[in-house]
């Protein structure tokens, strides 16, 4: 069973539909006990960083996510959910994140770029990761975001993407994974990636 954390932000149903398609049972939940009992955890999210952190705090969900990262259970942050894993963001002022992966979140600044970065872009695979097993290097994934992560540790970057600058579009540190793109909306390659994640949830 995979827990999709419901903290009032994000398109949770599309994540659940995609997990169902790859044969994984999942539950959309805001219950810390249910999250702690799951085989794997997905932290989705869209919208503002500060509001997401506020909602996680109000829902007493910060600790359970942080504990998941420490107890070896696979954890996948998607889009804003990935950004929340980091130490801090400068979206609407400086805000602390979950601090699971050291690094920060900043806005695209190149003035000639359209923001949000919206649409299909290529991921160049960096360090090998089980998450990308069966996914070709340079495969297109669907993005919709205005901020991106800068991990302190370059080894955490498993995928990078060019949009004015080269940014970390996928990260992996131990049992913790982050995808700046939306695998649940990225067609066949996205489903392959989710299937890989689900497989890790079963074996761990």
């Amino acid at each position: 069973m995979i827990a999709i954390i419901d903290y009032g932000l994000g398109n949770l149903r599309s994540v659940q539909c995609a997990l169902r398609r790859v044969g994984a049972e999942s539950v959309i939940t805001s219950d810390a006990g249910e999250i702690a009992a799951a085989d794997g955890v997905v932290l989705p999210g869209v919208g503002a960083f500060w509001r997401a952190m506020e909602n996680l705090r109000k829902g007493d969900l910060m600790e359970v996510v942080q504990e998941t990262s420490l107890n070896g259970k696979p954890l996948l942050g998607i889009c804003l959910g990935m950004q929340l894993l980091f130490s801090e963001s400068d979206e609407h002022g400086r805000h602390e994140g979950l601090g699971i992966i050291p690094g920060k979140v900043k806005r695209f600044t190149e003035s000639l770029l359209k923001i949000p970065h919206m649409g299909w872009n290529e991921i160049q695979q960096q360090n090998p990761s089980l998450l990308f097993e069966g996914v070709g290097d340079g495969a297109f994934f669907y993005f919709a975001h205005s901020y991106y992560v800068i991990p302190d540790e370059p080894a955490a970057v498993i995928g990078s993407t060019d949009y004015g600058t080269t940014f970390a579009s996928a990260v992996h540190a131990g049992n913790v994974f982050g995808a700046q793109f939306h695998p649940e909306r990225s067609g066949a390659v996205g489903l392959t990636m989710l299937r890989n994640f689900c497989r890790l949830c079963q074996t761990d």
Partner: protein
Amino acid sequence: MLAKRIIPCLDVKNGRVVKGRSFVNLRDAGDPVEAGKQYSDAGADELVFLDITATLEARKTILALAARVADEVFIPFTIGGGVSTIADARGLLSAGAEKISINTAAVKNKPLITEVAEAFGNQAVVVAIDAKRQAGKNGQWWEVFISAGTTPTGLDVIEWAKEVEELGAGEIMLTSIDSDGHTAGYDIKLNAAVNEAVSIPVIASGGAGGPEDMLTVLTEGKADAALAASIFHYGTYSIADVKDYLRNHGVHVRS
């Protein structure tokens, strides 16, 4: 590098796909979920469903449709038509839509744009602008029309586009009423003017007759995405035809 997007649009009435010329003379063109799935398999980058159902009661079918599409299709899809409250937006996004598009309600109730953007993120908010060429004292301009292209607003399209960006829209879907359904090409000047005025992505809509029209609007028109209905629904061109043509002309598209 970010790819230019090709987006089939499905006008949905009472749960069926229809497409007309300049918003009249609708013809039935199939089941929305089946059509969506086929387009997704064929390489469409996104889907847009526009609900043109008239009655409030029948509108509930669009929620069910959003849920069915989310179950079967794993590329982004936008639902528009009749979204006038935050509750409408929440319903569609919770059902699995990636974005909602707001047209008439955005003009009548501007704070709605900001409200939805704050609740669900800018990327979830598409403002649809229906533009009609008008002759003015200082030359040609484009006027914003609402209520399915029937009602002039007096608003200048360029000014309105800038305003919706400030209000929190994440994207603009720009339809030329003059070109829509005529398959004689997009309004390139309109698209270029709006793309130069805003820094959010713009989806060009209205007038696609073939791949060469899409090439023109994505290059000269500077659009980020090209939307089409008729040419895809009636099989005049496939998504692959369009993408091959664009690729051969140096446009970066998703393979």
